[in-house]
């Protein structure tokens, strides 16, 4: 397994049918994606907006969705098809583990959480007996900063989202996988706890040699965490490279558009500056409010003049103009 790429995807397609039985049409959720993760442990981020196909891609890697065409290989061996070399379900679960978005839905409310970790250890035959299972569980929990004692006999309601996500990670670590596929693992975790989880991925990568496929819409954690990033749009990869290359100095139009839409700290959107400046200016002149449509609107020329380089404006939208607020029905009434 060592020389072959951890994950190799070639020409992957997934089509869904939408609409009626006869009038329906094919929608390509994933439209010809190819990518490779070298054997070196790494965090590989797949970034995109909703509908970009990133989750469908993740679900195909996790074998939850059957590809329409194309191949996925793990350590050089195919995941799908009828090849004799094909990875079977049991082996697959030892090699690849998932972490899902909502930790509150990842566990049942009726089972104590330690039982999940035990079951994983026993079912995947990582542990031959209960004592080994306890030891392995303890080890996995320690690597996420928890312990068996902390969670034994406790239920989902007794933990915060951050703690539950750590338990999910501990569970995923039990079979010593080569690859963890994490689909939006921190979007439900509070801001003050989020970085603890993100940093945990880094530590696990370095200490245990596990690679991560990190699926997210959040460009800042992708930048912080990943060794490689691909940007998806409409089922295709539109940009790929090291985060410093493609995010810090985006070249692709779509990446630029995404970057320009992030509400960043320390750098106000030029559109907002323009709206606020205009309002202040009007207040200073004590002028009456302008005629219909007089204020600059997102994407209009006067906004660009205020400092937004072209391409950083919003996606064009036909005539976003606020109506006249000065005529009031209150006055008419």
């Amino acid at each position, binding site marked *: 397994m060592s020389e072959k790429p951890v994950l190799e995807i070639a020409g992957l397609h997934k089509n869904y049918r939408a609409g009626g039985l006869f009038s329906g049409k094919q929608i390509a959720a994933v439209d010809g994606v190819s990518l490779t993760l070298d054997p070196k442990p790494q965090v590989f981020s797949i970034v995109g*907006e*909703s509908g970009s196909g990133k989750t469908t891609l993740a679900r195909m890697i996790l074998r939850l969705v059957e590809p329409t065409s194309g191949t996925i290989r793990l350590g050089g061996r195919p995941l799908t098809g009828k090849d004799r070399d094909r990875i079977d379900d049991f082996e697959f679960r030892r090699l690849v583990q998932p972490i899902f978005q909502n930790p509150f839905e990842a566990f049942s409310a009726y089972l104590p959480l330690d039982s999940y970790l035990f079951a994983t250890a026993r079912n995947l035959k990582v542990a031959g007996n209960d004592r080994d299972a306890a030891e392995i569980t303890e080890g996995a929990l320690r690597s996420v900063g928890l312990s068996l004692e902390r969670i034994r006999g406790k239920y989902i309601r007794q933990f915060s989202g*951050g*703690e539950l996500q750590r338990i999910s990670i501990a569970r995923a670590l039990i079979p010593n996988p080569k690859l963890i596929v994490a689909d939006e693992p921190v979007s439900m975790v*509070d*801001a*003050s*706890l*989020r*970085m*603890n*989880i*993100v*940093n945990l991925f880094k530590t696990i990568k370095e200490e245990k040699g596990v690679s991560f496929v990190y699926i997210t*819409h959040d*460009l*800042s*954690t992708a930048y*912080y*965490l990943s060794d490689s990033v691909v940007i998806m749009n409409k089922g295709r990869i539109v940009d790929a490279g090291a985060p*410093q290359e493609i*995010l*810090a100095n985006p070249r692709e139009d779509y990446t630029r558009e*995404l*970057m*320009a*839409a*992030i*509400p*960043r*700290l*320390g750098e*106000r*959107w030029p*559109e*907002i500056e323009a*709206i*606020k400046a*205009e*309002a202040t200016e009007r207040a200073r002149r004590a002028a009456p*409010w302008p005629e219909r449509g007089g*204020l600059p*609107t*997102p994407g209009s020329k006067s906004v660009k003049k205020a400092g937004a380089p072209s391409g950083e404006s*919003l*996606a064009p*939208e*036909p*005539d*976003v*103009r*606020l*109506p006249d*607020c000065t005529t*009031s*029905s*209150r*006055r*008419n*009434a």
Partner: protein
Amino acid sequence: MIELKNVRAGYGTPDAFVAAVDDVTLTVNDNEILGIAGESGCGKSTLMRTLYGDFSGGLKMAGGKVTGRFTDPETGRTTESDAARFQDLWWDVMSYVPQGSMSVLNPIMKIEKQIVDALPKREKKGGKAELRQRIIEFLAGFGLPETVLDSYPHQLSGGMRQRVLVAIAAFVRPRLILADEPTTALDVVVQKRILLMLVEIQRRLKNTLVLVSHDLGVHYQMTDRIAIAYAGKIVEVGPTAEVFENPRHPYTEALIGALPRVGQKGERVGLEGRPPSLASPPDGCRFAPRCPQAQAICRQASPPLAEKAPNHASACHFR
């Protein structure tokens, strides 16, 4: 515009009263965008509902006072009221942009009827056709075509539905618009469009926008002033630029420090522990158990929210 004085509000449980807003004093000014930031369970939505006078679903006010004073810029007439009577002002002097457009709009009712139903009588005086025409013009201002009115919610995209909700809230030209996480579950590009729409409305109407969000980046972009909530208390409030540049409360500092930024690779760490249960908050400062700078006094006495610089207050014994 609205003053909260020592407000305590929360929910009765069989065992005890849980105060999700505990001893909060806050002023909402005319013509500003005020942000309320905090993590889940910090009481920011309850604070919002208290500001709106929405005491449904078991929310009760157990102490303090909420008073409102709204001036109509055209007639100059002033309306004074308190939280218990704010309901009379809904969809007139004050309006609300809820989160989750899919669950708020009625799935089996066309958008036009949903808008018309929400409007006060004075808007309907001109008759049905005239009102429809005005709504069409108004929606066009938000990039929403006429066909939206004859659509059911599921026929619109998430961004369009959310724009409909903002449009409904702005149509009555209210003095106060409250927006509770108006862009959660939206993509960044759509989110930006909605946020710009909210700023533009506020600057045009010269009214007040109160924006609840867990996203500090959104607050940085949008708000003039920001209040940081933690475990039912306001721990810091001040002009947004200053709070971000020079945070006084250790919690604010930790939140800002935990945000990764594109272009900066330096190590970022989160806070340890978790916010306390609102049912049994710790003695003293509620942040003390997680605070890296906590001293003995922090665990005994609850620091009051006090002004430490002009218009900039924090609830910390030391800063």
